[in-house]
């Protein structure tokens, strides 16, 4: 086949991919070695941006905040969606109904969803604080509370002093985590359900004949055969969680990333450096590349492990 003809078919997509993916990705890499202000390159600085970045306490705290977020979203979402999928995989009447409802938030825009939840978390008029008060609790400043949750628990228990490094994620970050779990759970349920339905029925029948109980069946059959699916859900949720931005931007602010910077995640930090504060794009690119390194590592692990442990 004549390669020129083939190229004519690839060019419409190829030109866009080259200009808006390959060139920007290569530029992000190059830009991270240059000092850029307001879109103007002012000189080559080598690894200086990275050196500065690693000494920037805001970078480390944004990385830590992102870490808290990922550690909150991933296990909770995984556990709840697996739990729901296992229930839905039993002979349930109205499976379609439950799946439809759980998936509904996935279709909605994160902007609208964030606005609705911000209103639910409203300190005085919010639905959540109303529910807490009707159950006899005291209202919480969900999105305005800068204290860490561990610190809050300790103070409730009577400890007056608490070291900063043990304070834990702020309550505002917990609120953002709740929204992320709520929005993403339906997607993971659908993936888990597909995985569960791929497990051959004979295995369950054999186990039943051998007299296995529910717990044994889950741990000896369902869980191992579901492990590639679980691993996929684990890593894809982690990868997406590292890129959290919209909820932070809409729910915690002004100033965004509040209270007291406790919800400033890495993509918001990147956004702020690159577009808000004077457009220091070289520095923002260095942040982007560190994020990329993290996500690339996760993606490669995912490829490796999923390839090696395919049970289907």
């Amino acid at each position, binding site marked *: 086949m004549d*390669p020129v003809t083939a190229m004519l078919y690839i060019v*419409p997509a190829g030109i866009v991919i080259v200009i808006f993916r390959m060139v920007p990705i290569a530029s992000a890499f190059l830009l991270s070695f240059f000092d850029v202000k307001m879109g103007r390159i002012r000189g080559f600085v080598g690894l200086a941006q990275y050196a500065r970045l690693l000494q920037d306490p805001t970078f480390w705290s944004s990385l830590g905040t992102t870490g808290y977020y990922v550690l909150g979203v991933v296990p909770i979402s995984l556990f709840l969606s697996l739990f729901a999928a296992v229930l839905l995989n039993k002979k349930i009447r109205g499976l379609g109904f439950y799946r439809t409802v759980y998936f*509904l938030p996935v279709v909605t825009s*994160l902007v609208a969803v964030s606005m609705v939840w911000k*209103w639910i978390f409203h300190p005085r008029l919010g639905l959540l604080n109303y529910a807490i008060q*009707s159950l006899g609790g005291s209202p919480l400043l969900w999105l305005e509370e800068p204290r860490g949750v561990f610190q809050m628990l300790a103070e409730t228990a009577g400890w007056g002093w608490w070291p900063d490094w043990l304070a834990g994620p702020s309550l505002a970050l917990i609120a953002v985590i709740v929204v992320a779990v709520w929005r993403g759970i339906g997607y993971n349920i659908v993936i888990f359900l597909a995985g569960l339905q791929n497990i051959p029925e004979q295995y369950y029948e054999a186990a039943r004949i051998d007299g296995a109980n529910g717990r044994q069946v889950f741990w000896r059959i369902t869980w191992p055969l579901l492990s590639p699916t679980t691993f996929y859900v684990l890593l894809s949720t982690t990868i997406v969680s590292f890129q959290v931005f919209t909820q932070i931007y809409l729910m915690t602010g002004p100033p965004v990333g509040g209270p007291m910077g406790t919800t400033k995640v890495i993509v918001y930090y990147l956004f702020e450096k690159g577009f808000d504060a004077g457009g220091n794009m070289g520095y923002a690119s260095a942040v982007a590349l560190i994020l990329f390194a993290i996500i690339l590592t996760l993606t490669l692990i995912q490829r490796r492990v999923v390839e090696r442990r395919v049970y289907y």
Partner: protein
Amino acid sequence: MSAEATLASHDDSSYRASRAAGRAGIYAALWFGVILMIVPFLWMISTSLKSPIEILSFPPTWIPTGHFVQEADGSWEEVYVVSENEAGGTVVVTSVDGAGERTVDAEQVVDRVRLRFGNYLEAWRQAPFGRYYFNTIFVTLFVVAGVLVTSSLAAYAFARMKFWGRENLFVLFLSMMMVPQPVYIVPSYIILVKLGMVDTYQALIIPWIAHIFSIFLLRQHFRTIPNDLYDAAIIDGCSRLGFLWRIVLPLSKAVLVAVVIFTIVGTWNSFLWPLVMTNSPEVRPLQVGLARFSQEQGTNHELMMAAATFSVAPLIIAYFFAQKQIIQSLATSGLKS
């Protein structure tokens, strides 16, 4: 199917009872989940139909309610209750348009369901939502059309033409998928500035008309179409492009529908990219307009919830008509953000 494993021979009544209890537990858990999923939407709609006064009422009400007082001529006037005097059984009310306060007997005030659809008009009027809607639909249509054309052509070449470097080029394309958007957004902005495209529709459309995952998906499908079909068509005088158009695409409807669905959902809901790439209302899409509206409105929660409702409504309505396809498409596309 059933993972709850038990010996089938057990059918004494205590076993049956525990099994029934287990079933009830499952349904209770599933319904608890349903409530958690639905309540935010119900609360959004409920709030969007309330008066500014009712927003402030605590405990909150679920069904928007209005207070009405009967006039001398028998007509009902809607009022707000300003203050209550419990001892005298009288209340001070003001008319909804704020025309003046007066005191009436508490018994004269009647509560009735009152849905203020006017909030939707008010929200729509307070920001150029008509424009935002148009922009989103316009951009979405072009992105969908672009993705369909560029992906089918490229997938066709990758699936059915042999040329030097084909696999390497394809892998190079695929590797671009691994790079998350925050990485390339800063240099993309610079490129769009250089091309003079910032704050135009082009910035929202052109970078998105090539979708690598769609190319991948279509290529996988195109490869399943037998070669004999191709040979027969060529002998009958069909051109290569004609074969794609007349035979391959009609045979790929299901995959094309999936591509269309995840392109629509992704484009309609995208936020970070248009936030960075647009700054004037003429091209600003709905999501960015909604975000701005929410930051400007501050306390008018009923208007914010009305705007949120009409922003999510099109996709939710579409979802109820085509949930099966939408769930499948989004699940296969791996679209998660």
